[in-house]
């Protein structure tokens, strides 16, 4: 029971956070325009993606298809990492006003690309972990009967509700603190998540032998925080923490933060204006 609540919470919290932050940001804009359509369109596409992926996971038996699924998951993680990072940069550039700086057609086309990026991000956020949630709920739910099944359904709903409450608590932060503080906090959360997705993708590539590990492991910090425990697993999901990191992973993690801090430091006005 408790384990079901936890699994559903864990599988849905990531999507809720990403979509929740995008939604809160849009809602605080002076003029959201079609923004909400892109966001909810993305969520709908994500649900379709989750169902499609879950169906494939249920049906896939051949070895080649299993491998293709793994490659697809790696690609999706890396794309999500890029999209989240790009979204944070975009949101920061705009601050609270979406309307200004739309004089030229090229800028408008650029804006359009960002909206599609937002839709794609919402779709991936829901679809990625959503597929696993569907498999878990469908499979584990069917495996039970009678009152156990009712209990299972109740636990699953509690997991979703808890995930939503977790996000709601975060969004309340924008009331207690200033919008600026809330937004800064959201940015850090999103960038950490992007870094964690990058770590996950790179780690899988090392696991397949596509990337050399270089030194493996560089250290063993499992006595401090084991990444295979529940708490360690959550911290790994949201920061990219690993108890036995390979040197390749550390290098890519460091490079990510270097690039991001460089991009964030560039003055927004300079970048959005043509030279």
């Amino acid at each position, binding site marked *: 029971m408790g384990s079901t609540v936890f699994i559903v919470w864990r599988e849905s919290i990531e999507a809720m956070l990403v979509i929740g932050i995008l939604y809160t940001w849009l809602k605080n804009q002076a003029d959201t325009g079609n923004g909400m359509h892109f966001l909810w369109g993305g969520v709908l596409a994500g649900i379709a993606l989750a169902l499609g992926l879950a169906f494939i996971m249920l049906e896939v*038996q051949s070895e080649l298809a299993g491998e293709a699924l793994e490659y697809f998951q790696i690609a999706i993680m890396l794309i999500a990492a890029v999209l989240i990072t790009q979204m944070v940069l975009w949101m920061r550039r705009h601050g609270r006003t979406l309307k200004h700086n739309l004089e030229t057609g090229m800028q408008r086309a650029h804006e359009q690309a960002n909206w599609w990026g937002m839709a794609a991000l919402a779709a991936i956020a829901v679809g990625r972990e959503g597929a696993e949630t569907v498999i878990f709920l469908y499979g584990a739910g069917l495996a039970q009967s009678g009152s156990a099944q009712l209990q299972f359904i109740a636990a699953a709903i509690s997991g979703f509700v808890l995930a939503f409450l977790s996000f709601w608590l975060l969004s309340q932060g924008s009331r207690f603190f200033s919008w600026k503080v809330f937004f800064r906090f959201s940015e850090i959360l999103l960038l950490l998540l992007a870094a964690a997705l990058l770590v996950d993708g790179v780690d899988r590539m090392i696991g397949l032998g596509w990337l050399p590990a270089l030194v493996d492991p560089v250290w063993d910090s499992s006595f401090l925080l084991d990444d295979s425990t529940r708490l360690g697993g959550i911290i790994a999901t949201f920061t990219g923490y690993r*108890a*036995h990191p390979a040197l390749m992973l550390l290098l890519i993690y460091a490079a990510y933060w270097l690039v991001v801090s460089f991009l964030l430091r560039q003055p927004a006005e300079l970048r959005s204006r043509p030279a």
Partner: protein
Amino acid sequence: MNTFSVTAKTKHATNQRMDIYKRTNMHKIHLASLLLLGGLLLSISAQAALPAYKLTIKDGRFEPETITVPARTRFKLVITNQGPGPEEFESKKLRKESVIAEGVTRSIVFAPLKPGRYRFFGEFHPDTAEGHIVAK
């Protein structure tokens, strides 16, 4: 007149050079695709020859719970979930995570491991589903 013929000559020379470029590029592309195809065939045949180890999931447990594999050798794990319910094979140390629905058999390829003991667990049954891969 003079200027014109020079321009024409230069143009001709440029065209010839472009032709050579195109041909060499074509050549490179052909070579690259051949290499790629060869690599793909090699990797498929290498995979078919990979040592395989069976792992069964049943009633929230792994069977066997310890799998001994040769160190520094690629291998694959053929996981069958007999249920009831789905399971997620997970190991951060082994860099793997795979949801396996009931009744599904899936194989996972592992890069060569250093000698050691690697823990894996079933995320949907974290209290009971646990095992180790021992690389010797």
